[in-house]
């Protein structure tokens, strides 16, 4: 991880010195363990604030929406795919962005670690041999890094950036033997009643804070459908149907665009696992259209385009 950090600082400094970018968006150490913060570096001498470790899960593409200046951005595989989606959707000019590509070794889930220890955590370090050491007041606990990963990272198949101008390291091997949709298939197999109960349970805690929406780089409409009043597509209260409508409509708006970066789940204050919705649509897009989001700047998502050979087996 140290090499990544050094290389990121070096690239950022050089880009700023050479005037290739006006700013670099990356991560700096947060004030709490496992809580790295996004930061914007504008001067070469500030580049040493940048760091890299397993707590850089936030999707920085979210800070690129509508950027008009020259920006350098530190990007993992998923972030890079969102940058591609931004380019396709006119949110970003390819010429204005310098992608500092990080071959990702998966991010740590701070909630998993917090749940596995008792007491306040004061320090978390990652060792070179794949361990995570957690220290707190009067305790120290070591985990296998592989057990602490964010859910989305554990099943990620695109860890290396799709577009990259400044590689931070050689590509990491991609995971090939993961099953991305085991849970989705299980939900598909449920009876209607079971599925309803499943979602009842899943959304029970939702407080309609829209953190999932705000964290998502895909959600950039000037006025979100939940805020529209004429017509009011979805009620604004805590009615379970309104909550459900919000979640599934949000997921539909991400269909064919979501890169499963996990920003929504990471942002949710009550721990709703709403990625099952986006991944259901991801699975459909893959099976119906052979599509994975953000893999090429030349092709628009399948729901934006018509092809005569689009599958239509659902039409009777």
């Amino acid at each position, binding site marked *: 991880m140290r090499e990544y950090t050094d290389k990121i600082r070096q690239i950022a400094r050089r880009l700023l010195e050479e005037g290739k970018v006006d700013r670099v968006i990356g991560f700096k150490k947060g004030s709490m363990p496992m809580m790295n913060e996004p930061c914007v570096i504008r001067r070469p001498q500030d580049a040493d604030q940048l760091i890299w470790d397993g707590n850089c899960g936030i999707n920085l593409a979210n800070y690129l929406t509508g950027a008009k200046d020259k920006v350098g951005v530190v990007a993992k595989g998923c972030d890079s795919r969102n940058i591609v989606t931004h380019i396709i959707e006119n949110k970003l000019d390819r010429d204005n962005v310098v992608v500092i590509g990080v071959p990702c070794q998966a991010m740590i889930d701070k909630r998993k670690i917090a749940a596995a220890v008792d007491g306040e955590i004061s320090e978390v370090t990652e060792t070179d041999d794949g361990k995570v050491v957690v220290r707190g007041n009067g305790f120290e606990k070591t985990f296998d890094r592989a057990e602490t990963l964010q859910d989305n990272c554990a099943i990620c198949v695109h860890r290396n950036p799709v577009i990259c101008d400044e590689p931070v390291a050689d590509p990491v091997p991609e995971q090939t033997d993961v099953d991305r949709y085991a849970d989705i298939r299980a939900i598909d197999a449920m009876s209607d009643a079971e599925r309803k109960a499943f979602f009842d349970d899943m959304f029970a805690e939702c407080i309609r804070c829209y953190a999932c929406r705000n964290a998502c780089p895909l959600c950039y409409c*000037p006025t979100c*459908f939940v805020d529209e009043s004429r017509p009011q597509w979805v009620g604004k209260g805590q009615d379970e149907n309104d909550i459900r409508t919000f979640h599934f409509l949000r997921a539909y708006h991400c269909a064919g665009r979501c890169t499963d970066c996990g920003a929504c789940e990471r942002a949710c204050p009550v721990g709703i696992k709403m990625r099952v919705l986006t991944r259901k649509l991801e699975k459909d897009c893959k099976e119906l259209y052979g599509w994975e989001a953000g893999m090429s700047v030349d092709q628009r998502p399948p729901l934006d*385009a018509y092809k005569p050979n689009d599958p239509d087996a659902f039409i009777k």
Partner: protein
Amino acid sequence: MEIVRHPRYVDESKCIACGACYEKCPKKIPDTYNQGLAKRKAIYVEYAQAVPLKYRIDPDTCIYLQKKKCGACKKLCPTGAIDFDMKEKIDTLNVGSVVLAPGFKPFDPSGFDTYNYANLPNVMTATEFERILSASGPTTGHLIRMSDHKEPKKIAWLQCVGSRDINRCDNPACSSVCCMYAIKEAVIAKEHSGDDLDCAIFYMDMRTMGKEFERFYENAKKKGVRFIRCRVHSIVPVGDTGDMELRYVTDDGQVTTEIFEQVVLSVGLQTPPELVALADRLGISLTKGNFCKTDPFEPVATSREGVYVCGAFQGPKDIPQSVIDAGAAASAAGEFLSPARNTLTRVPEIVPETNVINERPRVGVFVCRCGVNIAGVVDVPAVAEYARTLPYVEFVADNLYSCSQDTQDIMAQTIREQNLNRVVVAACTPKTHEPLFQETLIAAGLNKYLFEMANIRNQDSWVHKNNPELATEKAMDLVRMAVSKAALIQPLKETALNVNQAALVIGGGVSGMNAARSLSRQGYVTHIVEKSDTLGGQARNLHTLPSGDKVADRLEKLAAQIEADEKITVHLNTTLAGVEGFVGNFKTTLAGNGGEQVLEHGVAVIATGGQEYKPAEYRYGEDPRILTSLELDRKLMDNDPAIESARSAVFIQCVGSREPERPYCSRICCTHSVHNSIELKRANPDMNVFILYRDVRTYGEKEYLYREARELGVIFVRFDLEHKPEVRKDGDRLIVRVIDHVLGIPMDIETDILTLASAILPNREEKLARFFKVPLNEDGFFVEKHAKLGPSEFATDGVFLCGLAHYPKPIDESIAQARAAASRAITLLAREKIHTSGQVAEINPSWCSQCGTCVSLCPYSAPTFRSPEERFWPGKAEINPALCKGCGLCVASCRSGAIHLKGFDNDQIFAQIFSMNEAG
């Protein structure tokens, strides 16, 4: 000219197509439209989509007209439209030109006793089978056979019944369409009956030479349709099972028999005797196949000046080709009549429009009885009474017939007197009647969009005949919904756009020149842009046509006409550097001859042609004796001594066509090679000429050439894709090895000329496609608006298409399409102004997120991004109302909810839905 008008016995001006007569007519006779497979009455409408939708009495079967009894229809008709005294009338028309489009008659196979068509109910013609597959047909699309109404499990199609046959009938031509329709029927039959349905097509040559046809053929094979190359001699019944036995020879020469449960005869197209007589009366010449005789450079002109032809009377052809011909014939007639244009037009009176914005809605509701059509089921007075109670309704009336002229006048008067600003008509369908009522609104000074219809006939009284009370309730619901929407509708503006009266034709080949000439002859300034330094395109490489014409001579004449034409400007050595604008208002930057020039034009015709494939196979380029088809033409033109001295010549077909990487047929190569083989044989009858082919595709009357070539001794040897011929050199000898399909052994042919019938490639004009926002297909040809209905135009308005850029085709078809493209373009130019519809989509820029989904998705290229430099809403999407068709695709696709469809806005639709809910 004089035309005979046969009596309909129904007054068209009175008939409202209510169907009361049909219901009561006691006489049942075979339904001609359904090929006699179902019954209809003596009073009838031929089929549901007939225009005009007016009834007619068949005098041969009507009981009254035959025996002066019955007359039920006359007693019942609510408008008194029945007139048994109607007589044949002769109308004299003063016309400047005539277009013949009389069509064809399917071949009647009753005379072929070996096919037993007349005796076996399960032997059908393809036109009959077509009705069986149709959802509106006698079995509502359920695939059953006639003898026992069982679903057949095995169906055979026999091709070339009444085509390519001079033994059992006198139809030497190929009917062009039967291969494709047989495949289509087989695929649809499988769709209807499931994949286990066994479909076998018995054919001589599979002729799928149209655009996308070869792919369809290949897909049919993948779907399991069997293709058996054999002409079946006879159909033998198997006892009284209803099944039939076919005896045929397999590819490896084995005689075999197979039992089928249904046999379809793919009957050909022929000109019926009455048309031959008509041709004789009109004094126009026919071909030996009794099709109308035309010249390849004037493909729609008959032998008589001012008389034009299109469709299957010109030669057996499919719908796309017929529609192209139709456009060409319209253009030819238009060119001929150009001086008389607009001499018989009248200008309608314009009533000033009342401004209703900010007025409280004052809705007028007119409930129609439609005679007994609605009132017989729905309690119309009750519905009218109910309507009076609805919010904003100021006036209610019920009419006997809302669509009658006097009611229309009263409605207009009422709108004025009652000061109504919204109108709801509860009657029939807007599909047929909305324009009529909108005219009434306009006459009353109201914007025509302040109108809403409730369909209480087709969707209510007709379908709920047995539940009058519920039907009345439903009518009230429908009226309430319509009123709730009507209160929210706004007047919409139809923007008028001037159409720049100049045309741009891109490409100076035969197609481009013909399009330009047609445009100019109809009075429009036309620019031809040609990238090379001369006009003529690929045709310059052609020697002669099967008609015997020297292409060079005709081409020279054409080019001279173009150059002499004052309305046509030719820009040689020029290409397009950029295109701005849209239908009616294009600004194109031309680059060439050392500079750039901006041209303003209203329409564009893309005629960019194609090119010859330079083969990578068969040792092309290794020996001067190995030629492409065009190179052979060049040698023939130059009277190359190599031709005369040759003792042997070989043609290899499908070089680069119908291959996995280029899965289309180049359409012309079979005819081209067969024609050139005849030329060679004529030049030197002792020459041994071989054509190595996969299927000989001399469609239509080109079949005569195939026959002639065989008669002259040209030897045809078939090969298949897996066993292509091999070319080798043995010292100086050039040898072609091909596996003889009859003997199955390799055969070596030594040859002095080897002609490779190489594919026609598209020019893959990606830049042009981007400029005009028009699509290219997988192969690189441009994609027309609709394969059948819009073959010479693009979905994007104002851009037209012809020639090889569309698909490979011979000169006559290119010319027809060029003139069709011009004809379509002129429909725009002639209007001078185009009025956009008021019901178009509109983007609220403050909600637009610029994601580009609408821009990507719109089939008509209506949404675009504003320039980033624009002062207001830079970079946001906007919709050009001139291009928008109001389909609503963008509205549904917009995540930001920024797009609204005027006339179908969210609040209006929600108002309808929510007011429906009041029904409880």
